[in-house]
C-alpha cells in the first residue's frame, strides 16, 4: 500500500484512487486513470468504451468539442452584451442633428428594426464564412480592415513572445540554480514589481524615460504600410518592452516553481544516486515532467499578449486590433466590435486548448494507458 496523505472523509489511499471521477472533469487532466477500472467490467455506451480504450484520443476530442462549444457561447454573449449597451450608433452618428425621423431612417438602413435573433443568426452565418459585414462608420468591409490590423497586432505579440518566453524560462532556471540566494531574490523582487504595476503605467513610464528624457526610442509607435522592416522594429521597441515586462514575471515564477517541484521528487534523487551529472538530471529527468505546467502558463500569457494588447496599443497609438476595437466602441460601430470580440475570444480559446492538449500529450500515463 502506498502511503500518501489522506484528507477528508477518504479512508485510505486505495479508495482515493477509486473515487476519482474518470476524465469526466473537463477542468483538469485526471492524474491517474483508475487502475482498478482497467481490470473491472466495462459496460455502458460507445463513448464510455472509447474512453477506456483510447483515453488520449477521447480527451483530445473532448477538448476540441468543448472549445467549439465555448466559442459559440462566447459569440452569443458578445452579441447579447452589445445589444444590452445603452445608446446606439444612430444617435451617436447624428449627434446634434438627431431627429426621430433621421434616427429611424438610419436604423432601418442598418437593419436594426429586425428582431435580434434574426440578426444574430445572419451575423453568425457570415462570421463562420469569415465575412463580418461592413463597418457602419466607414462603410468598408470589416474583414478586410481587421486583416491588416490583426497582422499588426500579431507582429507586436510575436516579438513580445519571442523575447519573453525564452527569457522567462531562462530566468526561471537561473532562479532554481541560485535558489534562495541573491540572484534568485533579485529576480523575484523585480518580477513581482513588474507584475504589480498596470501596463499603461509601465508604458507611460517607458515613454517618459526613453522617448522624452533620453530620446532614444520612437514615439508614437504607429506603423505605416510604407515602412521598412527595420523601421517597424524600432517603432515597436517600447510597446514590446512593456508587454515583455508585464508577462515575464508570471511565466518566470511558474517555471521556477515547476522545476523546483520536480527537483525535489524521489526520481530526481534516484538520478542523483545513479551518479548522473547535473545537466543530464535537469534535461532528461526533470524537464519532461515540468513541461505541462510551464506550457499552460506560456499559453495563457501568449493569449494575453494577443488579447491584452488593447491597452498597450492605445497608449502607444499603435494601429492594431486593440485600438481598432476601442475606436469602434466609442462610435458604437457594432459589426467591428463584434468581430474584434469574437476574434479575441477565438485566440484565447484556441491557445488554451492547445496548451491543454500539449499538457495531455506530455503525460505518459495518458500517452501509454495500461
Amino acid at each position, binding site marked *: 500500500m*502506498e502511503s500518501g496523505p489522506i484528507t477528508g472523509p477518504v479512508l485510505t489511499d486505495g479508495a482515493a484512487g477509486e473515487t476519482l471521477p474518470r476524465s469526466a472533469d473537463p477542468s483538469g487532466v485526471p492524474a491517474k486513470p483508475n487502475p482498478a477500472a482497467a481490470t473491472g467490467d466495462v459496460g455502458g455506451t460507445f463513448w464510455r468504451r472509447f474512453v477506456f480504450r483510447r483515453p488520449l484520443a477521447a480527451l483530445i476530442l473532448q477538448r476540441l468539442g468543448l472549445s467549439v462549444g465555448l466559442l459559440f457561447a462566447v459569440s452569443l454573449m458578445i452579441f447579447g452584451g452589445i445589444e444590452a449597451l445603452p445608446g446606439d450608433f444612430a444617435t451617436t452618428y447624428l449627434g446634434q442633428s438627431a431627429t426621430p425621423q433621421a434616427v429611424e431612417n438610419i436604423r432601418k438602413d442598418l437593419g436594426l428594426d429586425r428582431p435580434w435573433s434574426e440578426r444574430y443568426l445572419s451575423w453568425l452565418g457570415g462570421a463562420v464564412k469569415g465575412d463580418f459585414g461592413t463597418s457602419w462608420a466607414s462603410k468598408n468591409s470589416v474583414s478586410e480592415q481587421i486583416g491588416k490590423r490583426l497582422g499588426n497586432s500579431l507582429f507586436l505579440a510575436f516579438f513580445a513572445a519571442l523575447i519573453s518566453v525564452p527569457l522567462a524560462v531562462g530566468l526561471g532556471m537561473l532562479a532554481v540554480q541560485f535558489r534562495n540566494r541573491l540572484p534568485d531574490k533579485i529576480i523575484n523582487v523585480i518580477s513581482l514589481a513588474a507584475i504589480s504595476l498596470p501596463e499603461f503605467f509601465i508604458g507611460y513610464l517607458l515613454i517618459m524615460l526613453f522617448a522624452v528624457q533620453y530620446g532614444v526610442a520612437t514615439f508614437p509607435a504607429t506603423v505605416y504600410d510604407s515602412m521598412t522592416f527595420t523601421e517597424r522594429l524600432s517603432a515597436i521597441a517600447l510597446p514590446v518592452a512593456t508587454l515583455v515586462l508585464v508577462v515575464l514575471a508570471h511565466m518566470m515564477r511558474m517555471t521556477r516553481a515547476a522545476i523546483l517541484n520536480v527537483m525535489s*521528487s524521489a526520481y530526481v534523487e534516484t538520478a542523483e544516486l545513479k551518479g548522473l551529472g547535473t545537466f543530464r538530471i535537469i534535461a532528461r529527468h526533470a524537464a519532461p515532467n515540468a513541461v505541462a505546467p510551464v506550457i499552460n502558463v506560456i499559453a495563457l500569457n501568449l493569449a494575453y499578449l494577443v488579447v491584452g494588447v488593447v491597452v498597450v496599443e492605445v497608449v502607444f497609438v499603435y494601429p492594431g486590433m486593440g485600438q481598432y476595437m476601442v475606436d469602434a466602441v466609442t462610435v458604437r460601430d457594432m459589426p467591428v466590435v463584434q468581430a474584434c470580440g469574437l476574434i479575441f475570444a477565438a485566440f484565447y480559446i484556441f491557445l488554451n486548448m492547445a496548451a491543454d492538449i500539449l499538457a495531455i500529450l506530455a503525460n505518459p500515463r495518458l500517452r501509454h494507458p495500461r
Partner: protein
Amino acid sequence: MPELLSVKNLKIEATSYPPGEPPKVVTLVEGVSFDLEKGKVLGLIGESGAGKSTIGLSALAYGRGGVRITGGEVLLNGRDILKLDRSGINSVRGAHVCYVAQSAAAAFNPAHKLGDQVIEASLRHGIMTREEAKKRALYLFRVLGLPKPETFGERYPHQVSGGQLQRAMTAMALCPNPELIVFDEPTTALDVTTQIDVLAAIKHAIEETHTAALYITHDLAVVAQISDDIMVLRHGKTVEYGTTKQVIEAPREDYTRALVSVRQAKRDEAPDQSGTLLKIECVHAGYSNGFKVLHDVSMHLPKGQTLAIVGESGSGKSTLARVITGLLPPSEGRIIFDGKELPKALKGRTNEELRRIQMIYQMADTAMNPRQTVRDIIGRPLSFYFGMHGARKSERVKELLDQIEMGSRFLDRYPAELSGGQKQRVAIARALAAKPELILCDEPTSALDPLVAEGILNLLTKLQEETAVSYVFITHDIAIVRAIADSVAVMHRGRLVRFGPKSKVLSPPFDDYTDLLLKSVPEMEIGWLERVLKTRRMESAGN
C-alpha cells in the same frame, strides 16, 4: 577477506529551522561503525528516526535535504568516499554502489520506459554497451521473476504493479554490477503476499551476483531472512551489533529483546459470540464510474467484541468501512446496527446514529486540524453531541486524556507537537468522547513503529474492557489479528473469503487464499523464507 565497506565513527548532522526560533543543529547519527565484507548482507534495523536510512545513504556519500556527514570515514575498498569531489563521487554512485528506495513507484521517472531507466547508469558510466546492458537487464528481469521479461523494459512505471516496480528497482541497482547495494525498506510498502516474492527475488539475485548489501528495515523478521549480520540502531546510535543468529536468538540488550518479542501478543477470543451489535447483510457497493468493489459481503459483530477485517490493498476492506459509516451508500444490502437498519447514506442518519459509530484513521496526522489544540480536538465531539461547555467540558477532556494515558499537560499542545503514537492516542480520545458503541479502526497502527503500535493495541484492549465498546479493526497484519480480535473476516478482491471466530478462521483446514496469506507473514525465525519457498516448490511440483 578485506572489507568492502568500512564505516568508522560516523557522525551525521542536520540543520532544522523551527518556526520563530533560531536554526539549530541536530545530530542524527553519532559514533556508528561497521564493516561489510564482499558478498555479505548487513541488516540495519530500528524505528523511524533511528538514522538507518541516513546511514545507508552515507555509503553513497549522500545526504537528503539539509543532512550533512560531519565526521568519521566511509571507506569503500579502502578509499574514503567522503573526501571525493563531485565528479569523483559521481563515478562511485550508480557504478560501485547502488540504491533501492522504499517507494519504487516514486523513485522511477514517470516519463521514461523502465528498460531505459534500468540500463541508464550502466551506459552513463561506460560499464557496458547498450546491447550488453539490455542483455543484462533481460537476465535480471528473469532472475527477479518479472512477467514477460522480454518486453518488460518497454513498459512505463505506471503500467506495472507496485511489487513489480520494486523488483525492477532491484534490477536497476544490480544492472551495473555494483559491489554494494543499499536496500532502503524495499518491501515495507508491499502487501505480505507480494513482500515474500520480492524478498525471495532479492535474496536470490544477491546470491547469484555475489553483491554485498546494506538492508535497511524496521522489521526484524524480514531482516532475519536475508542478512548475515544485524546492527540495531536507536536515536542514531548503535544498540547492538552482531551476527543474525546471535541478535535474533540471544539478544544482549533490552531494546533488542523488546523488538524480538514485539508482535507476539495473543489474546483469547470471547467464548460467547452470539449477540449482535452490527450486522452487515449481503452488501454490494461500487463507485459511480460503474466499478464494483464489494460483492455480497455479510458479517456480524457481537457487543463489546472486536471484529478484525483482514485483506490486502484493493481487497475492499476500507470500502466496507465507508459503507458502514454511510460515506458510500451500498447499492444492495443492509447495515443493521443494534437491531435497527441504518439509513444507507450519511445524510439520512440522525446525530444520535452518527454518535454511536466513530472512526480512527490510519494517518492521525491528516485526520486532525493542525491549527487546533488537543483540548479543542477532543472537546469538539463533546459540545457537538452532548452540548457540553465550560468547566464540565474541560473536566471531561481531562478525564479522556487520563483514559488514553496522556495526562492534562498535553491539553494545550498542537498536533505538530505530538509524536506519532500520541497523535493516534488523541484520535482515539476524540472517538471515545462521543461515547460510541462501535469504533471503526482503519489500520490505526500501520504507520507506527512496532513498539508504539503495541502500546496503541494495548490501550484499545484496555478501553474495551473499561467501556465495553466494540471495534471493527481493519488491518493487513495477521499479528495484529492474533493480538486483538475475537472474530475475523478475511477479504480478497471485494469478496468475503472466510468469516468466523478467530480460532476457527486461523486454523486449518484453510481455503487457498487464507493459506497463502498466513504463510506469507514473516516469522522471527532464521531460515523461515527458505522453508516456505521449499514447501511452495514441493506443492507446485506435486500438482
